């Protein structure tokens, strides 16, 4: 009898749910599609409802409910972050940071079990919610639907628990991450810092920055490499945290950004100047360089011919294009929902293959098992007619 598993992502941004039955993706949706609130972070009650509706499964019959992140590990990072702040002499700032960040974690994520019980009335057959690690969920979302038996796995995002970049491999149903770069050093957060500095919303406007890049010249690339980030030949990197705010405050770029990049941050909704275009081009160039170096290193380490990719940075399709063109791997497969929303899917697939030890569905060259990106609600002709009729449309 196949297992039916619900994956959940939420509380940070792009809350989502996904339903997997016997390894097959049955449904997946982001909460924002129901609430009309972009990047809605709240517990995805509507997305969960839809997934169970599409799968026509009672919550009590779910074999497992899996959350995409480990709140305790995330809390550990928050505590250590605050302690580090206090050691640097800013006890008041560290306390405020701790209260703010711990509130975000303890206020929601730590109660995921309770929210599941409130929403579904049951934790499913497993008796409790299971927790995946954030980057394992990303990795699973990329590897398991891919049309390959074996692949190198690369995940790059802002941060998940501690990790910000992970390298690994997938073989059959087994998935392993063997190297990682940890917070506060993060390519995703670096890109978001520039997003914020250029006047766009963090965790939302990154695509605008990427789209702005071709209009500019990468004249700040040297300054970025010299002051902000030390990129090694293997693609690993370290940030100079004197320039960033996420260790000792909630701001993304620190005050020294303005000195380095010719003036204060652009205010949202003000005209975009040549500087923002050049900043976009510069950080895009640095990002592509890191992605390419990391990919080459991973190819050498893993010996794999295929690469699968996920994490928020994998939404940077321009960098992905450069990676494909570079020919480092024979084939590349990228999870379409590479951001946190895809973590819901990854968590469910991870439980199916790793916890329940179910073999992967072989594609036999027929393509991936993602079933495309149209995994959300559909409406019958009868429903559409009833809606039009009730609302007086001709």
């Amino acid at each position: 009898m196949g297992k039916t598993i619900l994956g959940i992502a939420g509380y940070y941004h792009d809350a989502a749910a996904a339903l997997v039955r016997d390894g097959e993706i049955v449904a997946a949706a982001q909460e924002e599609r129901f609430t009309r609130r972009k990047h809605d972070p709240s517990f995805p009650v509507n997305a969960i409802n839809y997934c169970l509706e599409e799968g026509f499964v009672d919550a009590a019959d779910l074999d497992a409910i899996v959350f995409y992140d480990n709140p305790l590990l995330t809390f550990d990072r928050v505590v250590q972050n605050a302690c580090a702040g206090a050691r640097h002499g800013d006890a008041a700032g560290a306390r405020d940071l701790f209260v703010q960040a711990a509130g975000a974690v303890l206020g929601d994520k730590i109660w995921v079990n309770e929210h599941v019980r409130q929403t579904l009335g049951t934790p499913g057959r497993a008796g409790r919610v299971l927790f995946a690690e954030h980057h394992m969920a990303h990795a699973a979302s990329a590897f398991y639907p891919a049309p390959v038996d074996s692949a190198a796995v690369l995940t790059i995002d802002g941060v998940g628990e501690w990790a910000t970049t992970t390298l690994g491999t997938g073989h059959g149903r087994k998935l392993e991450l063997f190297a990682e770069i940890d917070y506060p050093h993060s390519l995703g957060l670096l890109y978001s810092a520039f997003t914020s500095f250029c006047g766009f919303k963090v965790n939302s406007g990154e695509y605008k920055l990427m789209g702005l890049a071709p209009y500019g010249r990468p004249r700040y690339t040297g300054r970025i490499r010299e002051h902000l980030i030390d990129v090694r030949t293997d693609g690993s990197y370290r940030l100079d945290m004197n320039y960033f705010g996420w260790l000792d405050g909630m701001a993304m770029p620190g005050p020294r950004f303005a000195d380095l990049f010719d003036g204060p941050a652009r205010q949202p909704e003000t005209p975009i100047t040549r500087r923002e275009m050049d900043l976009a081009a510069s950080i895009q160039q640095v990002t592509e360089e890191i992605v390419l170096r990391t990919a080459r290193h991973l190819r050498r380490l893993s010996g794999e011919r295929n690469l699968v990719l996920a994490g928020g940075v994998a939404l940077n399709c321009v960098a992905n294009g450069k990676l494909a063109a570079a020919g480092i791997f024979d084939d590349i497969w990228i999870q379409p929902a590479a951001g946190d929303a895809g973590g819901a899917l990854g968590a469910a697939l991870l439980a199916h293959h790793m916890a329940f030890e179910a073999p992967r569905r072989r594609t036999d060259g027929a393509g991936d098992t993602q079933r495309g990106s149209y995994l959300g609600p559909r409406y019958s002709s009868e429903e559409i007619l009833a809606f039009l009729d009730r609302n007086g449309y001709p």
Partner: protein
Amino acid sequence: MRQLYEYHPVVGYRYIPRLRVRIPHEGGGYLIQVNEQGFRADRPFARARTPGHRRVLVFGDSFTAGDAVPNRQRYTELLETRLPGAGTPPVEVYNFGLSSTGTDQQYLIWREFARDIEHDLVVIAVFVENIRRVAAQFRPHHDEHGVERLYAKPYFRIENGTLQLCHVPPRREPYEEHELDAAQAAAVDHGGRFLMLRRMVTKLGMRDMVQHLTQYQPLPHYDSPASPAWCLMRAILAQWIRALDGPVLLMPLPLPQHLDETCDAAPYQARFAELAADVGCRLHDPLPDLLRIAPATRRRLRWDKDIHFTPAGHDALARSLQPVIADMLGAGLARAS
């Protein structure tokens, strides 16, 4: 949540055919499936009897349609599973329940959708509050976004001793309060008296406590056999039962207050007993069976906030009904042979 209902020119509305929906609920949510005729069922309703099977048709409102539980946990499906005895043919139970309807609309459902369906028994389950709906010409309904809209409903009135059907077809569009004249405004079913007070008490979660303290009698319409609302209800049920050509079981379903023994069931019990005797149908009052359940367990027959039956409530009702239906089906078979 998705839209559940579509317009129907006689009944007013019905479930959208072939719908498969999950409805969020205080119990965690429940799945419903609608058949091609627009009723909550996992199969289409066939006109001809399935060979070797007996068939029961059940009519009612949300308590029969199964608000708050999936199809398989309703008393009708439980009966279908439990009724076959050793050496007896299996039983199909067709559930024509439609939420928020009055007995008048349930009668129209029979006329529109079930009149030609072969059967061995008809069960008319009357949630006793339906007497208010029968007297109403307009009812508020909540849409899938929780917005209350006021709709015209089909209704009957008695003219020269006969039932006249009105508001058919009902207007598709909802009404604004200001569109109604005084007589129409008086014919809106707001769920009883003291609307604002009831809303406040419900919002504060004090409904059970206030009922216990006040012993409020919510349905005075049953107090007299001559009350206009009962006369109308009685006329509708009598006409319906007399039009049926097989055995009929009339089953009044109590209010939560009756289950909590905080209001008097005797008036409605008397009226339904008079009616059953008059039209010659069998009456089954499940209240005595339900009252034999210990109070703490009995409270769990309905949800904390939602007054509808929990799975335990449907189970208790099915247990109460099962011997009666088995007896009636057995008698029917004996007559047929």
